[in-house]
């Protein structure tokens, strides 16, 4: 019932190589738990367009939208109504694991679905205004330690969101109580940028792909990337937090899940399809176009990642007093 089908704009002529190792079902669908244009939409389109371009599916995969509770409505819909539908994949991200850890997806936990795989990632960044006196993470953390009340930290989400978690990590590394951070909940990365420029906040939390262009344009300064290794492209000169002596990552993976009652055979055939997809040149191109960094974890490995994330976030949330 609650399904709004907007046909994905798909190019190319389908079905040229019909029967060429078609592991995925004949008819497929990707569910995005948000409005068109958001992160889940990007995730769905990555799968839909690259699967078609790599000729792993015959017919275009339509993207459907079901907004509500940052994916909560879609999660409940899949678990409750389409749990055994092998044709449906649903977009998810680190944010989904975070909400699951906080019990914000309703009565269901992370075991109610089958986690298929992640095809790309973005990473957390810590930014300051371009005229800020702080040039490294160390400068910032030292200054923060001295006068935590002078540092309003802004992010694109509420208390408990990914950006808030990044702020809490900074506070923790400065031996401060995360409960006492002066966190400003703004609406998205654009608002973080404006608030930094206006001097209303001193530190901003955000994501690498979005902030990279502002960093390049001189509108913000990225102090550290919360990734295990340096990111390629615009940010290759920006050191990671780890290089600066702070052991924290923030991986924003973009992945998919299947219904919890999908058979092992169907699950495995999706896993095989994704493995093939990840190796195709068409996929790399599609991923880059969407501003995502390489991050491919599929099948059982991905299930492990999600469970670990949920566990980690539960601890973080408890420490932060949520």
């Amino acid at each position, binding site marked *: *019932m*609650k*399904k*709004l089908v*907007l046909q994905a704009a798909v190019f190319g002529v389908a079905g040229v190589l019909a029967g060429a190792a078609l592991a995925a079902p004949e008819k497929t669908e990707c569910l995005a738990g948000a*409005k*068109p*244009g*958001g992160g889940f939409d990007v995730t769905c389109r990555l799968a839909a367009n690259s699967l078609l371009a790599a000729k792993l599916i015959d017919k275009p995969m339509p993207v459907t939208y*079901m*907004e*509500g*509770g*940052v994916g*909560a*409505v879609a999660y*409940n819909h899949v678990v409750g109504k389409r749990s055994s539908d092998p044709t449906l994949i649903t977009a998810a991200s680190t944010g989904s694991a975070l909400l699951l850890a*906080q019990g*914000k997806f*309703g009565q269901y936990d992370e075991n109610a679905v089958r986690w298929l795989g992640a095809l790309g990632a973005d990473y957390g960044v810590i930014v300051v205004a371009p005229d800020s006196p702080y040039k490294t993470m160390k400068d910032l953390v030292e200054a923060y330690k001295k006068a935590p*009340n002078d540092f*309003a930290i802004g992010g694109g*989400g*509420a*208390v*408990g*969101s990914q950006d*808030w978690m990044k702020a809490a990590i900074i506070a923790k590394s400065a031996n401060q109580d995360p409960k006492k951070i*002066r*966190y*400003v*909940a*703004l*609406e*998205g990365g*654009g*608002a973080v*940028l*404006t*608030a930094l*420029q*206006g*001097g*209303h*906040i001193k530190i901003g939390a955000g994501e690498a792909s979005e902030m990279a262009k502002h960093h390049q344009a001189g509108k913000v300064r990225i102090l550290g990337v919360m990734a295990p290794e340096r990111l390629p492209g615009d940010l290759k000169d920006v050191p990671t937090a780890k290089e600066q002596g702070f052991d924290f990552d923030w991986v924003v993976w973009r992945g998919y899940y299947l219904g919890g009652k999908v058979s092992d055979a169907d699950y495995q055939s999706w896993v095989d399809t994704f493995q093939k997809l990840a190796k195709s040149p068409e996929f790399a191109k599609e991923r880059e176009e969407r501003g995502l960094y390489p991050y491919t974890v599929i099948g059982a490995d991905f299930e492990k990642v999600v469970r670990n994330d949920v566990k980690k976030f539960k601890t973080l949330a408890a420490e932060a007093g949520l």
Partner: protein
Amino acid sequence: MDLSYLWTGFSVALSPMNLLIGFVGCFLGTMIGALPAIGPINGIALLLPIAYTMGLPAESTMILLAGIYSGAEYGGRISSILLNVPGDAGAVMTALDGNPLARQGRAGEALMISGLSSFVGGILGVVGLTFFAPLLSGLAIGFGPAEYFVLMIFAFATLGSMVGSQPVKTLIGCVIGLMLATVGLDATSGAYRFTFNEPELGDGIEFVVLVIGLFSISEAMLMLEHQASGGSIIKIAGRTFARWADIVRCTGATLRGSVIGFIVGVLPGTGASVASAVSYTTEKRISDRDGTFGKGDVRGLAAPEAANNATAAGAFVPMLTLGVPGSGTTAVMLGALMLYNIQPGPQLFAERPELVGGLIASLYIGNVLLLIMNLPLVGVFSRVLTLPNWILVPGILVLSIVGVYSTHASMLSILMMLGIGVVGWLLRKLGFDMAPIILGFVLGRVMEVNLRNALAISGGDLSILFQSTISIVLWIMAAAVAILPFVLSWRARQVKATAPQLLS
């Protein structure tokens, strides 16, 4: 000043597709404005979901909605003049002198003069918007959470003191809007509020649901209730071309009306009805030496018409630069931007020049189109007035339900829309205006989030709300608009009290 955004905008607005969309918007807008029951908010509320579902890009949707908005301000005058029933809220004052003119057999002239002054008001308003908006958007960087919060206080102060004759009902409407805005995910703490464990309520009450319920459904119910329409339509007879002398006589009134309209439009929270009322009374004070106002004076017709069209442009200034609506209609358009995942605010000019520029350019083009359409085609538009309710009411209901379902695809949304519609109908019967509810709803979220963010920055210290120059100026302005009407009415009573003594 850097006006490159405007040239980008013209190239967007002049693309064949957007030109057609603009034309359709203006045409529908004039019809919607002419219909006594439906105003620009209804038109926009009904067409927004359709445009969104058709997959129009954001800038095209904004061009369509802006066309409807400006078209409705033109169309409203038609029923005011011919029927003595205002076509929308902004055209109330137009009837005062427009209808007497029509009764004197000068309906054609009245329509042309009001059409011309609408055009002048509209164009001057857009020129103001073109130059004023980038200035304000530069200033907007200085707006932090504290300043935004005080700006909201100012908006509510203007609303309470200026709208209509029932400030208490206006404020109650605002409070209802504020309360509705608290449903859903709390943007600061991330907690769910008043959602009754219903995930669909997690994002709060959907804007489209609220707007269509409050405006379209309740309107349809009111129309069902009042089957017989009272007034009789005056036929357009006599000369259709205005006398040159009349046009010249109106120049001052039109220019003053345009300036007043633009300024009132820029003030957050006030709309066309306030602008036309202020300009009419101002004009009466300045020009009415022979007591001809209210008996068919062309100046009393030109001033409010210029004002309500200038308001439409002025209301875009705070919407595009601060993300704060200047009127009920721009509040709905703000909701439209959010539907497209576009966060309005100071960064909009820099990040989406094609959208802001395209919208402003389309207002220039739209006003020219509307002038061309409205002079010769006024006879066609006046036919709309004879449209029977048995076509109109089911049409509105169908469009409402299809619109809500196509954007949110949920039965709960439709049930909520109907429920809100019934409540809206009851409130309207009790004499409440719906626009303050919408403004309370939109401004309420901004106000709450910014207050809490401001206090988060200061660590709970309230003095942050009085620190910057911007905040202090806004506090003073808020106090002034809240107190001024009382002072004025007290003075008016004093004058009245002393007048008889002087006579005796």
